[in-house]
């Protein structure tokens, strides 16, 4: 009896398992008639939300997460959905979306990404007809999206369409396209980027999030004429390979390369400072500058500071630059308005002696025409500012007298 029940139970289980697997293999495994996404195997469509899973199964470390974040920045979950849309649906999506400033920022960002992906997919499938359709629409955003997609995938083919976009919708639209085309080329390699830079000229500052694996930064920097791109590239290189960046700055300041190295060199300090302390970063750039003649390095020093430069950076620069002349150049630049506060005050305060402060003020005053400075109104104005500055610096009386003596006699 017991055996009968046992066999009966086994039969039921066999039937049940067979039925379930049979049902599942059709219902769950088969493709959808309407084209809905169907994951056919685990590797093709792993459960989504765990970012770590997307890039490396169960491995949870910085490298795998970074790869997953990179995928998100490229479209993430939008990519698969858009790839599965048919042409008509892609066109409808592109036509329907209009970016408006009052909409939620995250929605705008995600939909912006979606329309770029949709435009890319449409161009990938249709090529020129997609561009013609977008142009006929008369919509700037739509035409721009398609031309951008084309410029990223087929930059040479898209060049004529780029001109048509600019002619119809203005240079700003073109600048966005050129920037995107360059970024796409950057992800293909330095040779491609140099070629595309010659094809699409624009002066728009672009965010440069990544380089292709094996990108030849040094080769690129020696040959590119794109000022903004070179700044960002050197910023990255100074973080990744300071020795290579050092050599490039030295060569650049001695006249090699096609861009103004006083700007690119200043960007290198930014890159180094992302990896280490302000003092260490300044020590590094100071070491590079110490090997370059004063005339070549002076313009770079002025470019290392701007309105957003922190007091800590100013202080580190004053203390860490290789020579007094460098400190005087920096201080003169920061004292342009002769303000008794802010960066000027920080720079002078960071100097190690009143004697150097007096020299810095003297150097700044040399920028004035002495005859004009002798005019009572200007003399009084400048004198008043210097008094306030000296007071804030708590300079010794002797040093203050020296500064007062620098001003010409009033006429």
């Amino acid at each position, binding site marked *: 009896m017991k055996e009968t029940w046992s066999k009966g139970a086994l039969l039921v*289980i066999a039937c049940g398992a067979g039925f379930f697997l*049979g049902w*599942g*293999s*059709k*219902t769950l495994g088969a493709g959808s008639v309407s084209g809905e996404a169907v994951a056919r195997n685990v590797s093709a469509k792993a459960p989504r939300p765990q970012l770590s899973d997307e890039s490396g199964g169960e491995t949870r470390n910085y490298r795998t997460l970074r790869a997953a974040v990179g995928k998100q920045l490229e479209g993430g*979950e939008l990519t698969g959905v858009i790839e599965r849309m048919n042409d008509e649906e892609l066109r409808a999506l592109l036509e329907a979306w209009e970016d408006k400033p009052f909409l939620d920022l995250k929605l705008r960002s995600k939909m912006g990404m979606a329309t770029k992906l949709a435009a890319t997919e449409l161009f990938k499938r249709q090529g020129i007809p997609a561009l013609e359709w977008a142009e006929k629409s008369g919509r700037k955003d739509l035409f721009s999206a398609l031309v951008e997609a084309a410029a990223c995938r087929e930059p040479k083919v898209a060049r004529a369409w780029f001109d048509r976009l600019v002619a119809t919708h203005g240079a700003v639209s073109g600048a966005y396209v050129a920037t995107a085309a360059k970024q796409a080329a950057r992800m293909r390699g330095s040779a491609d980027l140099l070629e595309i830079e010659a094809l699409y000229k624009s002066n728009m500052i672009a965010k*440069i999030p990544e380089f292709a694996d094996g990108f030849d930064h040094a080769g690129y920097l020696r040959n590119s004429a794109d000022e903004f791109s070179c700044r960002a590239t050197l910023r990255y290189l100074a973080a990744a390979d300071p020795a290579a960046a050092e050599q490039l700055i030295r060569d650049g300041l001695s006249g090699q390369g096609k861009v103004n190295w006083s700007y690119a060199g200043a960007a290198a300090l930014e890159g180094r400072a992302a*990896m280490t302390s302000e003092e260490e970063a300044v020590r590094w750039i100071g070491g590079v500058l110490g090997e370059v003649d004063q005339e070549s390095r002076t313009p770079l020093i002025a470019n290392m500071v701007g309105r957003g430069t922190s007091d800590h950076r100013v202080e580190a620069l004053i203390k860490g630059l290789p020579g007094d002349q460098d400190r005087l150049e920096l201080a003169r630049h920061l004292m342009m308005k002769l303000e008794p506060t802010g960066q000027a005050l920080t720079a002078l305060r960071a100097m190690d002696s009143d004697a150097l402060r007096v020299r810095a003020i003297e150097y700044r005053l040399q920028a004035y025409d002495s005859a004009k400075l002798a005019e009572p109104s200007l003399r009084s104005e400048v004198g008043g500012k210097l008094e306030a500055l000296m007071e804030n610096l708590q300079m010794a009386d002797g040093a203050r007298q020296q500064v007062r003596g620098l001003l010409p006699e009033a006429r």
Partner: protein
Amino acid sequence: MAMVVHGYRNWRSCTYQVTGKLDSRSFALSGMKCSPVSGELDLVMPWLVDLRPMLQTRNARGAALLAAAFVLSGLAGWSVGKKPSATASRADPGLSKPDKSERLEGRKPATAEEFREWVEWLVAEGPGRKERMESWTDQELRSALDEGMKDPGLALHGPAMGTLLLILEEWTSRDPSAATEWWEAISSDVTRGHLAVALSSGWPKERASEGLDFVARHREAFLGPDGSKCGNIIGSVVAAALEKGPEAADEILVRLREAKLPLMLGPAGFPAGFDFAAFARAAEMSTLIAENRARFFYQAWLRQDPERAFASLIDDYRNVKGDPAESIFSGFYPGLRVGAPGMTENAGWLGKKIGTLDAEEQQELARKGGEIMCREPAAVEAFVGALTDPVAKAQASVAAARDVMIEDVATAMRLLAVERDQDARVDLLKASLEYRGQMAGKPFSAEDERVLRATLAEWAVAHEQIDGLVDIAKKKGGNR
């Protein structure tokens, strides 16, 4: 032996995994797992079926019978099973509020509207950072942060920075003390400053007040030249105070001022039924109003109680006499943004309110109103139509025309026509065309030229003068 069936049904994706062990004597169907995407149903059908008795039998007939039953049942199941149909999926009522896994996995929105709806859902409820990082251990977070700090990509603020932000935010949400200790030890000012935002976004709401003290101690990092990065912490503190009422809210304003921190409202904003009038009378808040720094306050008040808020705005304007763009219209900005739903109605409502003021006050406000609404001609017309003073109407129209001219020549000409003085009108037109040239507007088309010439002919402008104005319009400039 391993057998994997991975399937999908009606927007829902499940992974069925049947793993078997087979040796010479035994087989174990060790588990069947249904794991939908979000993990909410991690193990719906945990089976452990021991089939040893079945396979241990030496009765060949029995084994054959069981095998046949298995195969036949499988065929029956296959024939019963249904593929997901387009009709079923599109008619899925779950579109309005489906399970998260349904939305994320295997979704194919059929229309642009559905796509946008799906993206809105992703933005609002999709897997957030917390959800993505919660399986990481503290040690893994710490190790990943240390590894990430060596990534030169940090200099470019791309995925490298995004990754570190994700990790640090998660760690902060679990253990703000340990996370801040790690953060304070970062040698690079630049990177420390960029990562500050993760401390703010991850900071536990219930400890927001403590977070505010931390922000105040590190102002240089949280309020650097690249913008403020303490919105979440300050927003949480302010939201908690607003919940308590005007008195507590005013105390927070004082605390922020003393700590030299900016006022930031959290996403919750002002709670329903908040006593705005009492808050307006509070010491710190009334100072902000007097200094035209109360845009956040009036925007919220206008949303909750527009009549009383507008009356208070007018009173304040009469007392302070500042720039109406910073007082009267500032409160309306969200409703007056180009293309915003209801912009025309909002503009009409505001015009109607301003139309109740005396002529002098209307004129003071009309020009500013026209400038602010200029990119939406329908809103300008609604605003102008509701004003009662003719001079104010003309001023609003003309003020809007200059900006409208950048994109829409025909409408701009219509707005300029409100100016009755012919010389003044042509001067305004000339200035508008020159302004257009300086801005990055659309190229001046043949249709634009036709409209310009036809309108000027209607205004009886001399031919030579028309040619001169067309030349100005065609002149390139700005960013073109």
